[in-house]
């Protein structure tokens, strides 16, 4: 028994101190036939604990941040400075009555939240969180991420359709249309990284962004013109995929009440909420892995003292903060604006970005490739922007009855 405790603590210490293969010493203590299951559980358990905890924290931080943006204080009653608000909210949702509408399709209504949360948790399994912390090192990890991510659309549709409520159905169809549209720029912007690194395996993509020998700056993809553009496109598309403001039309509380999860209450509603936030975290994690160097520090020197996973979570926190900031700033877009942005602006830009990364790959001279891909991308951005939004269209507002220039 003492052996077990000692090796278990040793495993935790190895994980925290960023040492290779933390499970190596603990697993031999387990009987042969349970070894692989134990290994899987040991990999999954931290994910199942850390990310829901992060979700709980994010809900509070988001509400406080939004409050500050609107010159309010935000929640500050439960616990120190309001940081236990999530516990109050969680208890509330857990103890609420679970209402299923009589007309609803009972089975599909029940399965929909599960069909959202399970794939979202699965997407975490391929993300490299630290130097030695990859739950599942798949050869085609990126493909796995997108394939499993595509399955969440199904759950949204199930929820909206099974509720037998016109608002739910409208919300679900909006959500599905939005997710299908924004999946294309999302995948195309991720494809640039695949073109540059030549692999679909996420740990290998992270390795490709490590600083070379003697270099003082890491080779994050975001430091290249195509990487910067790809990252911007990726963030916008991920925001839309996660149904967050300004792309939160599927929820649209002022028009279609709450969209596809209108008819859910209690724990099932909490599951939807959880799934939505976890989807955002997963998308942020993928963005970090693809463009922000994964768990690498910006300056290789810093990696010596600060463990790798700390960098990953610091970047994750920064991206979540950015999303909260954007949510506090931008108003919700209209449906036609949403579709125009995806199909007329982001899709062509993503295609041009593929061309830019090809140029980057084939031009030998660093200066030439910087110049070529920057000019190409900037030209495409300005040109598309001009074409879609002629600057002269919006003039000064003219009032019919009020006298001119009177305030």
């Amino acid at each position, binding site marked *: 028994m003492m052996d077990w405790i000692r090796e278990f603590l040793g495993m935790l210490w190895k994980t925290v101190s960023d040492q290779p293969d933390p499970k190596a010493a603990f697993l031999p203590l387990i009987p042969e036939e349970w070894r692989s299951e134990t290994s899987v559980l040991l990999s999954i358990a931290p994910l199942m604990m850390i990310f829901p905890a992060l979700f709980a924290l994010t809900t509070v931080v988001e509400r406080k941040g939004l409050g500050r943006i609107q010159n309010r204080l935000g929640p500050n009653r439960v616990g120190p400075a309001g940081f236990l608000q999530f516990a109050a909210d969680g208890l509330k949702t857990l103890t609420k009555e679970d209402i299923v509408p009589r007309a609803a399709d009972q089975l*599909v209504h029940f399965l929909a939240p599960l069909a959202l949360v399970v794939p979202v948790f699965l997407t975490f399994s391929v993300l490299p969180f630290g130097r030695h912390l990859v739950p599942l090192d798949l050869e*085609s990890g990126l493909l796995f991420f997108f*394939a499993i991510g595509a*399955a969440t*659309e199904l759950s949204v549709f*199930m929820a909206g*359709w099974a509720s037998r409520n016109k608002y739910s159905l409208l919300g679900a169809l909006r959500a599905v249309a939005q997710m299908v549209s924004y999946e294309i720029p999302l995948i195309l912007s991720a494809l640039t990284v695949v073109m540059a690194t030549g692999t679909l395996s996420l740990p290998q993509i992270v390795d490709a962004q490590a600083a070379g020998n003697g270099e003082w700056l890491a080779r994050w993809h975001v430091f290249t013109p195509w990487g910067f553009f790809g990252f911007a496109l990726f963030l916008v598309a991920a925001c839309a995929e996660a149904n967050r403001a300004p792309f939160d039309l599927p929820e649209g509380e002022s028009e279609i009440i709450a969209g596809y999860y209108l008819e859910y209450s209690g724990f099932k509603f909490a599951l939807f909420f959880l799934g939505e936030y976890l989807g955002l975290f997963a998308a942020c994690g993928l963005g970090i892995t693809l463009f922000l160097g994964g768990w690498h520090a910006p300056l290789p020197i810093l990696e010596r003292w600060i463990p790798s996973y700390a960098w990953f979570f610091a970047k994750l926190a920064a991206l979540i903060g950015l999303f909260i900031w954007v949510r506090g700033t931008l108003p919700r877009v209209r449906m036609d604006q949403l579709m125009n942005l995806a199909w007329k602006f982001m899709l062509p830009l993503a295609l041009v970005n593929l061309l830019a990364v090809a140029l980057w790959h084939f031009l030998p001279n660093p200066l030439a490739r910087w110049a070529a891909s920057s000019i190409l991308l900037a030209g495409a951005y300005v040109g598309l922007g001009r074409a879609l939004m002629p600057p002269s269209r919006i003039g000064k507002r003219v009032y019919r009855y009020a006298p001119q220039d009177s305030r």
Partner: protein
Amino acid sequence: MNGLTIILSLLVIASALGAVALRNLVHCALCLMGVFLGLAAIYLCLDAQFVGLVQILVYVGAVGILLVFAILLTRGGGAELSPFFSPSWAIGAGAAALLALIMVAAILKTDSLPAPDAGGAELPTLAQIGKRLMQEDVIVLEAMGLLLTAAAVGAIVLAMPEPPPKKEEEA
């Protein structure tokens, strides 16, 4: 076939039966997704990682969504009230069952099926598949791209709302 694949196979057959026999079209589509996901899992069990993931991405993420949109656009969301099997359904079902019987019997009777490779030959890696797609099969790939573009354009043209008939000159 080990236990996992047998369970998956039973699941696939059950959802396939559901997909063709249920009254509600949306239930049929959801069962079809079950078939797709089960098949993807079977592909993964057969070490076909790339194909299995593409199966989920394309079938569940795209074809399935298209299906449910089409069902809702043709007002198939509720239960079908009119008879949902064609008048000659018994003949069709009989023919299908007969064919199934013949095929299964034939498969089980055949003893000249190729033996699996015992030497543990290397399975193709993802990089090999990619190279193959981009080098030897590049013409097929381009043709596929052309086909998909044509299909996308064709689908849009077909499903575009017809322009309202031009109004006669108002007298």
